[in-house]
C-alpha cells in the first residue's frame, strides 16, 4: 500500500481500533441502548474512513442518514418501548449456542479462504474519479443522474412505497371528528351555564412549599384550608395526598399551633 499518506495511515489505525471496539461492544453489551450507541460509533468511524479516502460526500451522508436519522429512530423506538428493557439471556431455540460454534468456525474458514485466494487489484484511490467531474460532489452527481439514474429512482420509489405502506397500516379513522379547542371551550361554558360543577379557568396548581413541591401536595385556599381541586382525583382516591393542617390565620385562635410547629407537620395525611 505504497500510496497512502501518513495522515491516512494514522487515521486508519486509530479509527479501525475504535470501530472494532465498538463492534465488540455491540455484541457484548447487555443493555440494548448501549449496543445501539456502539453501532453509532462504528458508523461514525466508517464515515471518517470514507472522508479520509476522498469520498467526502459519502462520509457526510453516512452520518446524516445512518447516524442522524436511522439510528435516531431506532433509539426513539427503544426508548418508547421500555427504559429498562434488557435482552433476555435465555435461549429461545434449544441448542442454539452449541450450534453457533460450528457455524462461526465455518464462516471464519470461508472468510479466510476467500481472502487468501482473492486477487486484489492495485490500489487506485478516488482522486481520478473525483477529478472527472471537477469535484467529489459533481462527479458523484454525474454518475447518479446518468448511469445509475434508474437504480436511484427505483430505490427511491421502493422507499416511498414502504413509507406509504407503513402509514396505511397504522392509519386509524376517528369514530367522532376531533373537537377543536374553541368547541371544547364553548361546550364547557354551556355546561357551566346549566349549573354543572365545571371549572372554567382550569384547575389550580398543586402547592409549592419550601419542603414539598409535588403533585400530591395540595395548594392552600385563602382561608388556609387545602384545596381539593389542586390534587389529582386519582391521588385523592388512593388517599395518598400529602396533607397540611389548616394554618391558623393571623389573629385567629391558635388551636392548631402545637401541630403546625412540629417539623414534620406537612407529612400528615389529610382527612377530607
Amino acid at each position: 500500500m505504497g500510496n497512502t499518506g501518513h495522515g491516512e495511515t494514522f487515521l486508519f489505525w486509530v479509527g479501525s481500533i475504535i470501530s472494532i471496539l465498538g463492534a465488540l461492544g455491540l455484541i457484548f453489551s447487555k443493555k440494548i441502548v448501549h449496543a445501539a450507541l456502539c453501532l453509532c460509533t462504528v458508523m461514525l468511524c466508517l464515515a471518517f474512513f470514507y472522508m479520509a479516502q476522498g469520498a467526502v460526500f459519502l462520509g457526510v451522508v453516512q452520518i446524516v442518514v445512518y447516524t442522524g436519522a436511522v439510528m435516531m429512530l431506532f433509539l426513539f423506538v427503544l426508548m418508547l418501548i421500555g427504559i429498562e428493557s434488557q435482552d433476555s439471556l435465555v435461549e429461545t431455540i434449544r441448542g442454539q449456542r452449541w450450534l453457533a460454534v460450528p457455524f462461526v468456525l465455518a464462516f471464519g474458514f470461508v472468510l479466510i479462504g476467500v481472502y487468501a485466494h482473492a486477487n486484489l487489484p492495485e490500489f487506485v484511490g478516488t482522486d481520478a474519479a473525483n477529478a472527472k467531474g471537477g469535484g467529489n460532489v459533481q462527479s458523484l452527481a454525474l454518475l447518479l443522474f446518468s448511469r445509475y439514474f434508474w437504480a436511484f429512482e427505483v430505490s427511491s420509489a421502493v422507499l416511498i412505497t414502504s413509507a406509504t405502506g407503513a402509514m396505511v397500516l397504522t392509519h386509524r379513522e376517528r369514530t367522532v371528528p376531533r373537537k377543536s379547542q374553541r368547541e371544547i371551550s364553548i361546550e364547557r361554558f354551556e355546561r357551566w351555564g346549566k349549573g354543572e360543577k365545571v371549572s372554567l379557568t382550569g384547575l389550580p396548581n398543586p402547592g409549592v412549599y419550601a419542603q414539598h413541591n409535588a403533585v400530591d401536595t395540595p395548594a392552600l385556599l385563602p382561608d388556609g384550608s387545602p384545596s381539593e381541586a389542586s390534587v389529582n382525583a386519582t391521588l385523592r382516591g388512593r388517599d395518598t395526598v400529602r396533607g397540611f393542617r389548616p394554618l391558623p390565620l393571623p389573629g385567629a385562635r391558635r388551636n392548631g399551633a402545637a401541630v403546625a410547629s412540629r417539623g414534620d407537620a406537612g407529612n400528615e395525611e389529610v382527612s377530607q
Partner: protein
Amino acid sequence: MANMDHWVINGFDTHIPWWFLLTVIKGVALFAMLVVLTLFNIWFERRVVSWMQMRIGPNRVGPQGLLQSLADGVKLALKEDIVPENADKPVFWLAPVLSAIPAFLAFAVIPWGPEVSIFGHRTTLQLVDLPIGVLYILAVSSVGIYGIVLAGWSSGSTYPLLGGIRSSAQMISYEIAMGLSFAGVFLYAGTMSTSGIVAAQEQTWYILPLCISGIIYIIAMVGETNRAPFDLPEAEGELVGGFHTEYTSLKFALFFLAEYINLVTVSSLAITMFFGGWRAPWPLSLWSGANQGWYPMIWFLVKLLIFVFVFIWLRGTLPRLRYDQFMKLGWKVLIPVSLVWLLLVAVIRQLKNVGDMDQAHLIPICLGAAALFVLVLVALEVRERNQVSRDRRSRDAAELAREEDLEGLGGGFPVPPMPGQQRAAITPRPLRTPILAVTANGHTPAEEASDGRQ
C-alpha cells in the same frame, strides 16, 4: 526558501509548518470567541428580556452586570455533582459531552471574513473550507441531538425521558424543512461550500430571490435549537426542566453552553446562506474597502448580534406552542411549502441555465408562478375550512341521529354504542347446552350470555 514555510524564531527553524500554526491559532481563537460569545449572550438575553418585561435584570457584577454569567459559571462549576441512582452512569456522563462537542465542531466551516494577513501569511478567516460545508453542519448537528436524547434516557426518570423523546421527534421533523430550504441555496449558488455560497452572494443576498427558503430556515432553526416558542423538550410548565432535569453542576453547564453555541451556529449559518455572510450591507458596500481585510468580521458580528437579538425577542414575546400544533406546523406547513418552492426554484434555475432567458422573461414568469402558488395556498385553505364546516354539520346530524336512535340499533343491526349512547338491554336467549359451554371455554353460562359485557 524552506524558511518561508516554517515557523522561525530568532533564526531557529522550529520545523513547524505555517499552515499548521495558522490552523491552531484560528482554532483556538474560534473556541475562545465562542465561549466569550456564550457568556455575552447569556447576559444579553437576560438584559434584553428584562428590558422587554420592564425589569432591570442583572446589573451588579461588573459594569452593567456584564460579568454576571462569569460569576454564574463559577458558581455552577462549584456545585455538587449529583448522579441519580437510577441513572445509566456511562451514558449519563457521555450525554453532555456529546451535546457540547458537536456544537463547537459545527462552527469550523463558517467563514468569518475574506483573505487576511496573519504574521505576513495570507489566509482566509475560516478554519476549514469543505466542499460540502453545509452538509457537514447538518451531520454534526444530527450527532448533537444524541446528547439530548441520551441525556433524557439515561437520567432514569420520566420527565427527562419525555423531553428527550420530544426533542428527537422535533429535531428530525424540522431538519427536513431545514434541508429543503438549503437545497434552494445550493441550486442558486451551484456549490455546497460555505465560502462558495458567500462568494455567490456578491451581487444580491439570497434572502431576496429565495425569501421563502430563508423564512423557512429561520423558523426551522428556532425549532432546531429548542428555543422559545419551540422549547418543548424543556417546557418547564410541563416537564420540569425536560432532558436536563437531573443534571447538575458542570454537566448542566455543558448543556447550557451547547444551547448558546448552537444559537450562534444556526444564526451564523443563516447569515452565511441568506444574508451575504461577511459581506457589508448595502450602503456600506459602496465603499470598496468594506469587503476587504478585517472589516468584514465586524459586519458578521453585527449581523450575528441582530440574529441573537431576534431570538431573544421571540422568547420575550411568544408563548410556547402546543406539541401537536408544533408538529402540524412542521409537517403540514413548512415541508409542503418548501417542496413547492423548491420545485419553482429548480424550474427557474433550469430556465436560466438553458440560456435563452433574460430578466424581461424571467420576472413575469416568477410573478405568475408566485401568483399560482398563492392561489393554490388559498384554495387549500378554503378547502380545509369547507371540510371543517362540513364535518361540523355531519357531526351535528350524526349526533341528532344518535339521540333519536335510543335503542342503538343503527340501521336495523345491533352495533356497539357510540360515546354517550345507552345500549338497550337485550334479554339474552338461554343457552341450550350450558354444560358444554362451560367445558368448551371455561366460562359460566351467565358470563357467556352477557357477551363479555359486565
